[in-house]
């Protein structure tokens, strides 16, 4: 009798363990990305301590516990100019849902950034990587470069070149990410 009870207890324990593993796996499983976005083996996002266009400090790690859309750009880069309006539209759509954004200009001056973002993305805080060193720590493939950083501070996805972020397929993907906190 004792032997049967022990077997039952072991089976129950095994069942609970399997349930726990499945649940943990489901919680960590991020959605498959749309075309042009790579799912990466997660790694810690490099530190970013820079200033915005008004001289106020910005620290990427202050945004932990949120998904962060980290975007590097320059006004002379033609695909950056094409992509920026889509980022502005995406941001209007998702900022209330908890997405944080770090729009980082690479090594240009305040006038250039102000003039450019005033036209293409007036709602987004302009961050300045004045000497380009913060950008280089992230080793982008080129400009523009976008990374999606999870609430634990790990890079999970990287976009290949400019993407139409305001299109439903990209918006829905970002919404799915935001639902996985």
């Amino acid at each position, binding site marked *: 009798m004792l032997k049967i009870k022990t077997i039952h207890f072991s089976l129950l324990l095994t069942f609970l363990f399997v349930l726990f593993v499945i649940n943990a796996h489901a919680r960590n499983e991020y959605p498959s990305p749309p*075309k*042009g976005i*790579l799912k990466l083996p997660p790694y810690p996002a490099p530190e970013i301590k820079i200033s915005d266009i008004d001289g106020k400090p910005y620290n990427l790690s202050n945004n932990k516990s949120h998904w962060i859309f980290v975007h590097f750009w*320059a*006004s*002379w*880069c*033609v695909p950056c*100019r094409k992509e920026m309006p889509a980022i502005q539209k995406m941001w209007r759509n998702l900022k209330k849902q908890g997405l944080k954004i770090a729009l980082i200009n*690479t*090594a*240009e*001056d305040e006038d*250039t950034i102000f*003039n450019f973002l*005033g*036209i293409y993305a007036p709602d987004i805080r302009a961050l300045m990587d*004045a*000497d*380009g*060193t913060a*950008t*280089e720590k992230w080793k982008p*493939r*080129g*400009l523009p470069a976008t990374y999606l950083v999870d609430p634990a501070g790990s890079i999970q996805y990287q976009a*290949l*070149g400019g993407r139409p972020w305001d299109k439903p397929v990209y918006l829905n993907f970002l919404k799915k990410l935001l639902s996985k906190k």
Partner: protein
Amino acid sequence: MNSNLTNRLLVLSILVNLSFSPLLLAAQKYQLDNKQLKISIVPRTAEQIGAFYEGRGFSKKMINILKQQCFLTVIIKNKSKNIIWHNLSNWRFESNNTDIMRYDRSYWKNKWQKMQIPQAHQSTFRWTLLPETLDFRSNEAEGGNIILAYTRTPISLTAVFKTKVDSAEKPVNVKINNIRCAKH
């Protein structure tokens, strides 16, 4: 917005388009298009190079050095379903049976550091160069400049890209002949 600012933006936009939009310069374009890769090469004139870097606030000293070189804007697209490995050390430029010198990132880094060029300009300059190495994903396209010693004679490019199909290595060999630096 005042008219001065509008004019500056207009000039900037024209300069960027003239300098780096290959579509506007269809006359001098060298292209290779096969099942795996599409490579476009557009030689840039000294005026285009000067206008682009002047628009970024680079010093005359820096611009004069750049204007003496042979600038080729290269765009590579991976058309295959596999990763294609690009490495500029596998590219060879030849003219009249002589290898043409390619000035790589470390050459420019040393030069700009010796000239005490501001970090921001060094960084912008690096971003305008073609990456030395890159694992091109399916459908990915990246571009940038290659800078060669200027020559008036035609140049042949031979390049090898590594790929892996079903775990077997299958290099993609590329040859483009008769490339000419834009006239100075």
